[in-house]
């Protein structure tokens, strides 16, 4: 279980997260939504231990991502915002590098198929389209067969067809994994998530089950975000 307990994060004087608390149970798919600058990425970074909270605590299966970072990170697959990749490497080199660090050779072949990157396996990452880059980032996150997937804007900047493909992949993955999906694309949340958390100005303003009616998330979002 992922637990955020009264987490705050300051960047100098600026408060990026303000007393954020929520729990994510195994098997949930969380749609983590909010406007730009609301604190979505900071929350994701605090969960994976890339940022240290100024106050409060994060635990993943009762382990702290800062103090027990190697143990915690073995359980997490993380796709960071804007999908940073080593562009000078080939797809094969990059994913073999991640594989060697996560010590998981067995799943690589099936991952190539699952993420649809077989045809670009020997291509240089810098030459790939945005959609393929996103698939490479997703494949990297899936190496090691992590229990938890943290995806920060996985479909941002993609065309509708690519968005649909990535979304379907996330839905398939969600059958076996706990997923936190940070996004500002509201239909995506309606399509994929089982629970919705809305954040604004560093505070959680809504945390509950996904509304059943189509378009309800958007209405809720517009009502809560001023």
């Amino acid at each position, binding site marked *: 279980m992922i637990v955020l307990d009264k987490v705050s994060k300051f960047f100098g004087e600026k408060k990026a997260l303000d007393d954020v608390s929520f729990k994510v149970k195994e098997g949930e798919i969380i749609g983590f939504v909010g406007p730009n600058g609301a604190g979505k990425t900071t929350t994701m970074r605090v969960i994976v*231990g*890339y940022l240290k909270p100024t106050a409060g605590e994060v635990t993943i299966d009762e382990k702290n991502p800062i103090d027990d970072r190697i143990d915690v990170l073995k359980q*997490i697959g*993380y796709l960071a915002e804007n999908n*940073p990749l080593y*562009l000078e*490497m080939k797809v094969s080199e990059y994913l073999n*590098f991640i594989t060697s*660090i996560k010590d998981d050779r067995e799943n690589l072949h099936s991952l190539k198929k699952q993420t649809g990157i077989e045809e670009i396996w020997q291509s240089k990452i810098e030459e790939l389209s945005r959609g393929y880059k996103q698939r490479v980032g997703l494949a990297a996150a899936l190496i090691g067969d992590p229990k938890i997937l943290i995806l920060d804007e996985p479909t941002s900047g993609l065309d509708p067809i690519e968005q649909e493909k990535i979304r379907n992949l996330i839905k398939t993955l969600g059958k076996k994994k706990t997923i936190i999906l940070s996004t500002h694309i509201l239909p995506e949340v309606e399509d994929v998530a089982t629970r919705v958390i809305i954040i604004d100005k560093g505070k959680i303003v809504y945390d509950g089950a996904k509304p059943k009616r189509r378009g309800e998330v958007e209405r809720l979002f517009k009502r809560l975000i001023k």
Partner: protein
Amino acid sequence: MVNLFKKELSYYFNNPIGYIIAILFAVFANFLFIKDLFLRGDSSMRPFFDILPWLFLIFISALTMRIFAEERRVNTIEVLLTLPISETTIVVAKLFALLIFSGFILLLSLSIPLTLMAIGKPHLLEIIMAYGGVFLLSASFISVSIFFSSLAKNQIVAFLCSVLTIFLLMVVGGDFLAFFIPRFIQENLNFFSPLYHYSNFLKGLVDLRSVVYFISFTMLFVFLTVINLEKRE
């Protein structure tokens, strides 16, 4: 660690920047030595080893400036720091990769001892000891540059901070300081200068204190870099 080491090393061998730095070093080092070779009239490599720290001051800083600064700029640092490997492993792997590439650059200076062997009788043991000193010196310079690269997002800032710090450390025990401070202080400060310890190797000596100095110096800056990465600010 081996995988990260290989990745870092392959960056330098598969990228023009590594070769440009290596070729520039080879041109400068060989030219500065050869230009006065026949005027000097002996087969000692001492003049080469005397200018080497000053060349390394620039070339090592240039080679290392990107090691973390570039990762910060393009945010691959987020990928690296969210993989299940320790910060110490990351820093040590990068240090070793740079050390090996510096060793490759140094290989390009082997033309000098080979030329000297063809035209005279250089003292081979002295040359081997001096190369050992260069290796330790480069490890210490790399560790300083890695530290500044981990602090800065801009490579040029990392380069300038690294050059300035190494320069100050090099001149800290210099004789010219005796004009401004008491002699005994200057002599004690001398101990902190990498040049002082490096000069022991040039005499063909392996002074254990100098070996310990270089290893401690390198470890100190590796430690500072790890602390900086662990801050997670």
